[in-house]
């Protein structure tokens, strides 16, 4: 299978392997931060540049609107399911992570499309940026509503004691969100000329940097796997089944809107991926009682590998199949 033979994915496996065999290989934290900063800037600038070329079409606005809604509403369903087994805060946190998106999964899908010479639209990057935060707010609201009016006089719990400004800040001003949105705006504002200036750094070495970053992701994901021992079958299977269900909703939406093959695939990945960077950072503040050793490993060590190894080619095949029969 071609994607599995692409360098970035193979470097992810290499990282997993290195952790498995207890190698001392490590990517220093500041390097990991630089790599993700680069990837966010690169995808943001490119998306903004493409958007400035295509302009904000009706299709673009429609998809972006649906993306926001999906991020805000999907957590309601997942939360209900997760509450069957998990504490209120943990269920809300995981629902938020899965409602939001994983930029690296999206970027890996973009690299897949580039390999396969399948075009995609810049507004998908915009949709990614727009999907990061709503799920966080929904998750926090769900957690608060559940305890509202409860006896606990704890000021932070309950919808009453909710500091909206603070919640907005924590959900929308996370570093990753700022860089992605900011780069997109800059790419949009500077258009052709701006892109020409940054392209040698922000486009050409892109896949190579992705190799370095996925190597580190492999190292980290494998390390985090251990945390899931306590998690149990229910949670781990949710990490896959839940992701696929959401991903298929994305496929369906793309099909109904008659989006292109590439755009539908990216939409599926946005719906079906779970955040392990922006959302956890926000939830430490907004939902401190939720256990990060549950929602981070689930998104990082289960859903992320599943998506880049199985999910992307799977949605690719499904979309090709159904694209034979357009909606009437």
């Amino acid at each position, binding site marked *: 299978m071609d994607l599995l033979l692409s360098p970035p994915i193979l470097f992810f496996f290499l990282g997993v392997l290195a952790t498995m065999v207890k190698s001392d290989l490590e990517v220093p*934290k500041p390097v990991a*931060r630089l790599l993700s900063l680069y990837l966010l800037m690169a995808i943001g600038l490119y998306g903004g540049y493409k958007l400035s070329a295509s302009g904000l079409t009706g299709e673009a606005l429609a998809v972006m609107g649906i993306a926001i809604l999906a991020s805000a509403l999907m957590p309601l369903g997942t939360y209900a399911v997760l509450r069957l087994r998990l504490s209120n805060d943990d269920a809300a946190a995981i629902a938020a992570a899965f409602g939001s998106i994983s930029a690296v999964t999206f970027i890996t899908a973009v690299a897949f499309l580039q390999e396969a010479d399948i075009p995609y639209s810049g507004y998908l990057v915009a949709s990614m940026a727009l999907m990061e935060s709503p799920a966080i707010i929904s998750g926090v609201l769900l957690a608060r509503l559940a305890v509202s009016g409860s006896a606990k006089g704890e000021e932070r719990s309950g919808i009453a004691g909710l500091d909206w400004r603070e919640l907005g800040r924590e959900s929308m001003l996370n570093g*990753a969100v700022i860089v992605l949105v900011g780069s997109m705006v800059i790419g949009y504002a500077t258009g052709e000329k701006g892109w020409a200036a940054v392209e040698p750094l922000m486009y050409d070495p892109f896949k190579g940097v992705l190799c370095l970053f996925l190597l580190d992701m492999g190292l*980290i994901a494998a*390390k985090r796997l251990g945390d899931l021992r306590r998690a149990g079958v229910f949670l781990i299977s949710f990490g896959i089944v839940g992701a696929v269900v959401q991903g298929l909703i994305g496929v369906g939406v793309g099909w109904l809107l008659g989006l292109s093959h590439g755009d539908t695939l990216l939409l599926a990945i946005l719906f079906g991926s779970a955040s*392990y*960077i922006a959302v956890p950072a926000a939830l430490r*503040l907004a939902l*401190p009682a939720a256990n990060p050793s549950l929602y*981070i490993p689930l998104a990082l060590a289960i859903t992320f590998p599943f998506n880049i190894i199985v999910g992307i080619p799977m949605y690719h095949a499904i979309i090709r199949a159904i694209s034979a029969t357009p909606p009437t």
Partner: protein
Amino acid sequence: MRDVKRIEIVIDKPHEPAVLDVLRDLGLPGVTVMDVATGYGDRGARDGGELSDAMSNRYLLTTCTADQLPALTEAIEPLLHKYGGLCLISDAQLIRNA
């Protein structure tokens, strides 16, 4: 050279600002903050914050007088209960510029 209480605090990096606010409100003269590479505690293992600060800790070193101590511990304890981490208190002698 004067006797002081030597205070060490380990806290999730996202909650560091809350701790610094406490120290400032108490008017403590200064603080030294260092990065924590890894660690583990009741809430399991912590990483070095490769991807986000969500799972990384910070180490704070500060000093206060014996009379400031009760107010400090009283202000810190709820943070530790809510967010985890720890606070170590020991005796030391301080040399400062004046």
